[in-house]
């Protein structure tokens, strides 16, 4: 399946915007992604292996956090994953 990589993480995928990774679940796809592109791992996951809080992942048009099976959701080669870090801020006071 294709994974769309956001601009700041393309430094770890050889500049590729889209990478093709095989796997039966989102988790398996992520594992394979970090095998193919090991340097991306620390930017996506905490040392405990949890997806970093500011990293959003969409399976097609669905937020992974709201899917019933989350990372264990089954995928096919026709699905697409999009990694999109959050955008927020403000003057604060």
């Amino acid at each position: 399946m294709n994974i769309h990589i956001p601009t700041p993480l393309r430094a770890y995928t050889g500049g590729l915007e889209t990478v093709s990774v095989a796997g039966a679940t989102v988790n398996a796809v992520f594992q394979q992604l970090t095998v193919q592109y090991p340097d991306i791992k620390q930017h996506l996951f905490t040392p405990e292996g949890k997806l970093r809080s500011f990293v959003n992942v969409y399976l097609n048009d669905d937020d992974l956090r709201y899917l019933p099976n989350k990372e264990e959701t089954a995928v096919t080669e026709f699905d697409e994953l999009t990694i999109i870090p959050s955008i927020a801020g403000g003057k604060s006071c």
Partner: protein
Amino acid sequence: MLRIHYDDYESLRTHGEETYPNECCGVLLGKNIAGEGNHVRQIVRAGNTRTDSAHNRYHIAPQELVKIQRQARGLGLDIVGFYHSHPDHPAQWSKTDFAEAHWLGCSYIITSVDQGKAVLTNSFLLTGTGEDDKNFEDEPIQIDIATHVAEAEAHNQKGQE
């Protein structure tokens, strides 16, 4: 250096005036040119989902970002930065802006809007290799008057031949 067309520059400043006293936000599409910096080719206005505190916070819905990234891909462009406004507050990044900044290599434009009028617009480049060593650096803005940055580049190239 950040390069942006005058129309886009004015549009993002106007966006801040339109949403005053709330913060506006949007996305910069373009290309990073090695050795030069981020060149903006198009800006995309986004909604501020922080309706609970829109006067001092902004947040772009991830779903909207996914759509904008798709739009960029279709245009052969990348997300090269973001913009937002600071109503009645300096055009300097805040602790919140820094804590919530995760797009390394991207430009973060901030416009101060005083009493509904856009005043200063500054850009900050998020540098570093990760969350531990990220940093905001002042980034000069070059405003292109030509109809399009690409046209300006083509013109410059032709002039050098």
